[in-house]
Every structure is written in C-alpha cells, then in structure tokens.
C-alpha cells in the first residue's frame, strides 16, 4: 500500500516536472509579450520527435547515446523551431493587433506542425527503443520494497536542473533582467535601451527549448504521438493560469500540484474524468482567482 503510494508520488513528480517545463515556456512568452502561444505544446511534440529520430539514427550508426545528449539536442532543435514560429506567426502581425489574432495564427501553426509530424513520422504511437532502457536499468535504485528506475530519476532530476537554471537566468543575468523589464513595460524597456526584438527572439528560443526538453521527458516516461502536443499545451495553459500568469515560480509549484492531482485522481478516483478535473479547476481559478494562486505579474483582464 505504502509502496504503491510512493510510486504514485514519484509518478506525480515526473509528470509535474515535465508539465512545469511546458508551463514555464508559456508563462515566459505570455509574460514578455502578453500573448498566448497556442502552438507551444506542438513545439514540445516536435522536440520529442527530434530526440526519437536522433536515438534511432545513432543506434544504427554508432550505438546507444547517453540520455542527456538526446535531451540537449532536442532542446536546441525545439528552440530553433520556436524561433521560426515567432518569425512566421508573431513578428509580421505587428504591435497593433487584437488579442485574438495571434491566437488564430498560432493555432494555424499548431495544425501545420501536427500534420508535418504525421507526414514525417507517421500517425501511430511511438516510444523510445527498449534497448536504450535496458542499458539504463543497471543504474536503477533498489530502496527496500520498491525501486526507482534511472529513467524516473533522470526525468525528475533533469526537470529540476532546468527549472533551477531558468530561475537563475531570469533573476540573475542581464538578459533575464531585460526580459523582466519587457514583461513590466515594453515601451519603457525600449526607452532604456533594451533591444525588444532580440529579447523576444530569445524568449521564444528559451521557452521552446524547455518545451522540447519536456517533450523528450514525456516521451521517455510514456510515448510519442503527433497529437501529444494538444494535451501538453492545454495542461501547460492550465498550469500557467493556476500559478499566476507571467509568474515563473508559480508555474513550477502549480505544475507539481497538478501533476500530483492528475496521477492521484487516476490512481484513486475515476480515471475517465481526469481531464474534467483539470478543466474544472481551470474554470474555478479563472472565475474566483483570475490572478492565479501565487499572484500574477500582469494585468491580462483588460483585454484590448
């Protein structure tokens, strides 16, 4: 009983950690640009396919790659995809648009990315090769009655490291400071000499790289399909609002809470209503605490 419970806690941490990486990207883009990027989940999906392709090609050429190499390459690939999305679907719209315009263009991008994934990788469910996991099994931890696999440790560890790194980047570096300035007020930031276009590109790149990492981690834990981005995107959005839009630390905490709620409700309540729970929570938060649990840095209610 206790062993299964601890297993559920680990599952919750894994899921929450991966969700957090998606949600942080959402919150960064929303914070800096005050825009919803609805193709963000699809960028994560592309990231996991990049990882999968890399593993499969490497396996036929040289052998099994270390997991962290796969993670880093997927992050770089997804980052580039994210920057391309910014250049195609956000930049040309200019600053005068209504809030619904970027919603529509990014949805269009999301559908195109889904179709591209179906075309390139097929619509069936894929997962990382068993051979890769066999090699990693040697590092599994056996603690008393239950075991923690290396993959589980890697997923939790990697998400924690990336979250920590991002926190350091946003709070302590000069570019992080410029990003926060843009989030506060774009016009003032520009007047103070911040290159807003450059910061926008970087924000997209970093947010998308985190999403790519999340894609690989989810792919390691579950499986990869061209439609996985839809669910990831919706969860990321829920978490962003839950934690307070534009609030990076809030997103981290909220992601862990939601990951926990989701695994526990699957394990101990009715699994079919899982998504109903998530959206029920979303609606209640929006209605009664639109700034999220931990406060929002932004005024999004005053829609243009």
């Amino acid at each position, binding site marked *: 009983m206790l062993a299964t419970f601890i297993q559920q806690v680990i599952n919750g941490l894994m899921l929450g950690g991966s969700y957090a990486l998606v949600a942080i990207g959402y919150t960064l883009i929303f914070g800096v640009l005050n825009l*919803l990027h609805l193709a963000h989940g699809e960028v994560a999906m592309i990231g996991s396919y990049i990882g999968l392709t890399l593993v499969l090609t490497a396996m036929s050429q040289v052998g099994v790659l270390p997991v962290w190499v796969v993670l880093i390459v997927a992050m770089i690939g997804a980052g580039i995809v994210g920057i391309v999305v910014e250049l*195609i*679907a956000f930049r*040309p*719209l200019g600053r*005068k*648009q*209504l*809030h*619904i*315009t970027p*919603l*529509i*263009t990014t*949805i*269009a*991008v999301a*559908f*195109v990315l889904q*179709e*591209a994934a179906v*075309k390139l990788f097929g619509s069936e469910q894929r997962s990382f090769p068993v051979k890769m996991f066999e090699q990693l099994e040697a590092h599994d931890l056996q603690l008393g009655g239950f075991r923690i696999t290396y993959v589980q440790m890697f997923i939790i560890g990697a998400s924690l490291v990336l979250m920590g790194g991002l926190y350091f980047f946003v709070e302590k570096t000069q570019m992080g400071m410029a990003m926060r300035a843009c989030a506060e007020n774009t016009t003032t930031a520009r007047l103070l000499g911040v290159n807003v276009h450059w910061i926008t590109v970087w924000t997209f790149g970093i947010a998308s790289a985190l999403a790519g990492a999340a894609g690989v981690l989810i792919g390691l834990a579950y499986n990869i399909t061209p439609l996985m981005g*839809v669910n990831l995107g*919706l969860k990321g*959005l829920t978490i962003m*609002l839950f934690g307070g839009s534009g609030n990076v630390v809030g997103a981290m905490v909220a992601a862990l809470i939601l990951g926990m709620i989701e695994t526990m409700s699957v394990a101990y309540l*009715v699994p*079919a*209503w899982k*998504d*109903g729970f998530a*959206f*029920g929570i*979303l*609606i209640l938060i*929006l*209605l009664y605490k*639109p700034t999220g649990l931990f406060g929002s840095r932004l005024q*999004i*209610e*005053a*829609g*243009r």
Partner: protein
Amino acid sequence: MRGVINAVVGVVTGLFTLGEADLATIGINMIMGLSMFLPMTVGQLSFGQAGFMSIGAHIAVVLTLYAGVWFPVALLVAGVGAGLVGFLVGIPVLRLRGLLLALVTFGFAQVVEVFFLNFRPTGAAEGIRGIYPHTTLWYVYGFLALLVLFLARLRRSRVGRAFEAVKLDETAAEAMGVNVTGAKLMAFATGAFVAGVGGGLYAHHAVFIQYDNFDFKRSVDIAMYMVLGGMDVFYGPLLGAFIITYLSTALQFLADWRWEVWGSIVILTMIFRPQGILGRDTLNVRRWLRVRHATAA
C-alpha cells in the same frame, strides 16, 4: 504554371458542382459562425461554441430518436436548452473579459466534452447511431435566413445599439443607462441558442454523433469562420464559413500540402486583414462611390 492554372480552374468550377451534402455542411457552419458572432456584438470572445453545439445536438437527438418529437420542435427545444445553459454559464463567466473569457468558455467546452464521454444515457464513448436524416437544405437555409434577418434588423434596433455601445466602451454605455450585464447575458445566451439549433441540424445531417464531434478542433474551426471572415459585420462569419468549408474540400487536390497551404492562408489573412476579410467599410457602396467621385474630380 499549367498546374497552377488547372488548380485555380478546379477550385472555381468546384463552386458549381457543390452537392446537397456540401451545401448543408456549409450552411450549418455558417450558423455556427453566427453563433460566435452574437457574443462578439457585445465584444465577448466566446471560444467554446462547440460545447453549446454538443448540448443542442444531444438534446435534439434524444428528442427525435427516443421520444419521437417532431423535428422542428426538437430543434427549438435543443436551442432553448443550450441557450438556458448559456444563460446559467454566462452569469458567473461574463464578469471576465478578453483572453480570460475565451479561456473559460474554452474550458467549458472541454468539460462538456468530458461529460458526454462519460454520460451513459447518450452512449458515452460510443455515441449515438441511427439518427434520422431529418436535416434538409430547407431547414438549414430557412433558419439561416431567419438569423440573417434578425441580425440585419438588430443593427438598427434599440437593443443592437446598446450592444454596440457595450462593445465600444462598457463604462460609457453604463453611464448612458445601458444595462451592461443584461446586454452581455442576452447576447451570450442568444449565441448559445443559435449554437444549439446548429448542433441539432448537424446531428440530423451527420446521422451519427459522438462526444469528439464537438472537441476543441470544432471550437477552433468556428472561431476561424468568424476571425477570417470578419468579426465586425454579420456577413463576415458567413463568408469565413463558406471559404473555410469550401477550401477544405476544394484543396483536396493538394493532398499532402493542403494543411501548409491552409495555414499560410490563415496567417497571411491575419497579417494583412487583422479584422478579417470583410470589415465595416468593405461593402459600403456609398464610400466606394465617394472614392470614385474624388478621383474623378
């Protein structure tokens, strides 16, 4: 080059060979586009019209299939049912504005989807089969005509002017004595009513419904009709619904590339016409005449 010309010719000639089923789908989508336009007349972005459509479809089907109710009555009840849900949902939800409202209504549609996925009496995940194909072009375009008449009259009416005022500036409207909350609720519930009737028509056209006929992709499609066609005038969503529904069949010849082409069309439209293809002045004959007059002089 030859290929391009053939493609263009194909798309144009396709217009004259639209079958009855295509026309019905286009009409239903136009109705759905207008259902989203109605909340927009008070500036409310409702992103979950598929939820109301789902409710309407299920009510109508249960009535005709299990209770043997006459189809028009079933449609009316479906509309009223969806409108009532819209009214009840609207009371708490309409305090929000802009993106937040879009998200809440979107979440509402998701919850409706999960509800029908688990609701045994309507077949849960299996959906309902064997629905009578009651929907004819007469029903679809008859209702559409009524709706267009209503919207055309609305613009010049007292209520329509109140909606317009709320859309432009809520505080000013309130100060002028407009009941802002009432106007919003009315527009939102009417939109839900229209979506419910549209759902009933859809169900008796498709003869098979399932929870995921009304998923987020449907909501997005409906939003596309309005945003692409134009969200300031009621004939905008009509054009948008027509273009998108028609292109999705006419672009079949592009086979593998049709999503890329579709995506580019959407993005380009948003770049050059952020308010949609048809704006307030696009079809204003008087303005055109004045422009011609000015150039002549």
